């Protein structure tokens, strides 16, 4: 893709505890903060939280869907985890074009929950061909 849309957005996606368990197995991250209700109850969050990397993956998926191979062969992602995502939350990823610089499009990237609260913020940069 040689042009950069002003706005990118995914539909909301419900994250279930079952998906968290599946992600733990697939990623190898079995931190009890995500999987053990009793352990998580004693944490600052009070209940299990979703892997940050699982929520972040939605941004990369959005960029792949929008830019295809350009994202896979030159994409850059920088993110801060602002707030926890809990199983049962419905999250969506979005990107707003900030600038085009050095042949790359730079998006302000956000993952937000069902209340509109930003749980991840950052930047996604993708090279533009042509």
């Amino acid at each position, binding site marked *: 893709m040689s042009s950069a849309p002003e706005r990118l957005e995914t539909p909301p996606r419900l994250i279930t505890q079952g998906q968290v368990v599946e992600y733990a197995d697939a990623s190898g991250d079995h931190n009890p903060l995500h999987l053990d209700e009793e352990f998580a109850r004693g944490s600052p969050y009070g209940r299990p939280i979703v892997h*940050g990397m699982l929520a972040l993956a939605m941004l990369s998926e959005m960029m792949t869907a929008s830019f295809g191979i350009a994202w896979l062969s030159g994409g850059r992602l920088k993110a*801060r985890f602002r707030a926890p995502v809990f199983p049962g939350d419905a999250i969506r990823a979005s990107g707003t074009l900030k600038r085009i610089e050095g042949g790359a499009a730079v998006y302000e990237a956000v993952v937000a929950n069902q209340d509109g609260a930003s749980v991840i913020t950052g930047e996604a940069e993708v090279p533009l061909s042509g």
Partner: protein
Amino acid sequence: MDLSDLEPGQTLMERRVAVTAERAAAYAKAAGDGCALYAEEGVVPPMAVAALALAEAMTAMRLPAGAVHTGQEFAFPRPVAAGSQASVSASVSANSVRRGTRFLALDLRVEVGGETALEGKTSLAIPEGAE
């Protein structure tokens, strides 16, 4: 591993890892990433490679329960083909304690065929005394 012993610049781990199609498919299913492009191009989702590198680093550190990621940076210079053998390495870029929490930053690198496929930096917050 005693996290307080980790010094900036220290290599945490270097390992060869198989990026199998099965592993990539399991990751994509779990992450809900159904982009057809991966299968069309014969490559794995870049975040699957990132997750693999992180898992190797976390395993090497025996990260205590209660640790959370506070930030991630990734660059994907080239896609990784399903079935590749990857060299995964992690090194310490920062290690400090503030107000009872250890802040650890790691540099991650994945190479395939001698070429960099992923570079990353992960930032972790670990409550002191967590096991």
